[in-house]
């Protein structure tokens, strides 16, 4: 039998000094990487959308020289719109793809690990529930937005270079194209739009979906949507009003209106949307939902 005479109960830490004192951010960093390993759609989906779009754009280049020749007949405002339209369309497509990925990612994030019982493995490691939930929340709020930005940025540059080659090849002047398409300004706008609107303004939505995915035993999507539909329906039937829907609509569409790229050419205007109470109320809700998800994960086991 063992007799460690020098050891007294409760002195486990003193017996063995932690071999490598890990900083608190290390488990977080690895948990985020883990998410990227598991959910490759985070970058595959935007890349796929971009590739499909580029393929279509490549075909459309046949008509580009013709388009450039007729351009001078239009007034400057229409000229600009005609040239930049495909670029904004590319950004829009990648944005929508990213949003869809974000919604499905969140609904699956804390549900899948319970369904496949792997939660028992994750919980056997020294990673807190808070770290785990935050590492999942940062994916739609920051990581996906940065991926969307990077993919859009690359796509738009490829588009511009391809267009320039075609324009040059047909003996036209590229200067017109380059003055209309100011990619650096567009990119800056896009980054602000993605991080502020799609990241922070939508954070309560992602947090809500994470909460539902931590709670629901099945049909997470249904549980995520149903309560809001019920509130809307009850209000409609009882009072014949739709203030609730209007409020949500205002927050997620109208509230972010100020940061729509076409409407605010300056980054400062985007930042100004952060000063209103709506933004902060949204973030407070996000924090509450995430705290709920952390607590739920502590109680939840495999389903």
């Amino acid at each position: 039998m063992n007799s460690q005479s020098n050891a007294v109960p409760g002195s486990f830490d003193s017996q063995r000094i932690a071999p490598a004192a890990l900083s608190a951010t290390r488990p977080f960093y690895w948990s985020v990487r883990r998410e990227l390993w598991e959910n490759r759609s985070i970058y595959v989906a935007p890349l796929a959308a971009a590739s499909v779009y580029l393929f279509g754009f490549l075909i459309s280049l046949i008509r580009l020289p013709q388009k450039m020749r007729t351009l001078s007949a239009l007034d400057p405002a229409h000229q600009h719109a005609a040239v930049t339209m495909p670029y904004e369309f590319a950004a829009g497509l990648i944005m929508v793809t990213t949003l869809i990925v974000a919604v499905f990612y969140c609904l699956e994030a804390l549900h899948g690990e319970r369904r496949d019982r792997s939660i028992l493995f994750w919980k056997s490691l020294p990673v807190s529930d808070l770290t785990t939930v935050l590492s999942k929340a940062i994916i739609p709020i920051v990581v996906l937005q940065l991926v969307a930005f990077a993919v859009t940025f690359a796509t738009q540059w490829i588009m511009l270079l391809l267009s320039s080659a075609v324009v040059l090849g047909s003996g036209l002047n590229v200067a017109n194209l380059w003055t209309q398409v100011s990619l650096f300004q567009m990119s800056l706008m896009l980054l602000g739009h993605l991080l502020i609107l799609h990241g922070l303004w939508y954070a309560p939505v992602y947090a809500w979906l994470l909460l539902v995915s931590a709670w629901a035993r099945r049909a997470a999507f249904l549980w995520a949507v149903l309560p809001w539909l019920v509130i809307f329906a009850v209000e409609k039937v009882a009072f014949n009003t739709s203030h609730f829907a209007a409020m949500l609509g205002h927050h997620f569409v109208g509230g972010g209106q100020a940061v729509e790229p076409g409407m605010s050419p300056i980054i400062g205007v985007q930042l100004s949307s952060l000063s209103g109470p709506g933004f902060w109320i949204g973030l407070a809700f996000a924090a509450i939902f995430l705290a709920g998800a952390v607590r739920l994960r502590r109680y939840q086991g495999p389903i």
Partner: protein
Amino acid sequence: MTVAALPIIEARGLRKAFGATVALDRIDLRIDEGRIVGLIGPNGAGKTTALNAILGLTPYQGELKVLGRDPWTERDRLMRDVSFIADVAVLPRWIRVSQVLEYVAGVHPRFDRGKAEGFLAKTNIQRGSKVRELSKGMVTQLHLALVMAIDAKLLVLDEPTLGLDILYRKQFYDSLLSDYFDRSRTIVVATHQIEEVQHVLTDLMFIDRGRIVFSCSMDEFELRYVEVMVRPEQVVAARALGPMHERQALGRSILLFDRGVNQKLERQQLATLGEVRTPSIADLFVAVLGNTPGNLAAGAQGVAR
């Protein structure tokens, strides 16, 4: 027992109920450092609930300290010193072997990646394979390699060899004993497969209906319990000595005696009745839990103390 041994797990009045079902009925237990404890009981006895409480996976009532910590409130901190294999199916199926090594190395301060690689080198597991591509036995080997490379104080195993074929099962406990266990570690294993842990354990604990109905060390077990295959003409005389259990096999009566209760029973005396041997844990388990569930609790209590 030495007094200096550390209580790795200490529970007092540990209770857990799911609605009206009581899974743990005020359990008291103490597991010291350097032991390999088998937690044995029928399905639904509360084994997994007890382990889950120890691992901080479920809230509970009563007092419970693991390595001096409250598992429910300090799970993440506790998991630096505790490793855990639930059963074969908990490694995420999508992960690659190389990724799981990298991840555990990233988050676990006591994980020795080189050691894990060394264990894996003895298997057929490819670094680039995903868990879903591995056989059940290989997944267990992988999990075991991860766990054995963690310098933990306590290892908890819940049915670790469930669904594995005999080769993997044997190998599992062999490598655990030869490559992992030393006297500064403690292992708690819950299992149905009693025979294969018999020679591994240092301590035995029977759990039934949320209570610990029996516990002893294996040394004590071997000293205290004697099984006699009684010759037919001696059966009446043998029964008079007060066996705790009797069963029939191959036309012979097999009587199990508890020498702890009846001190004057000498092995030599019993040898005159028939063949004497040490019972298997399974035989004792049956004797303790009884064939008659109704009076089980009362009979078991008498044996346990």
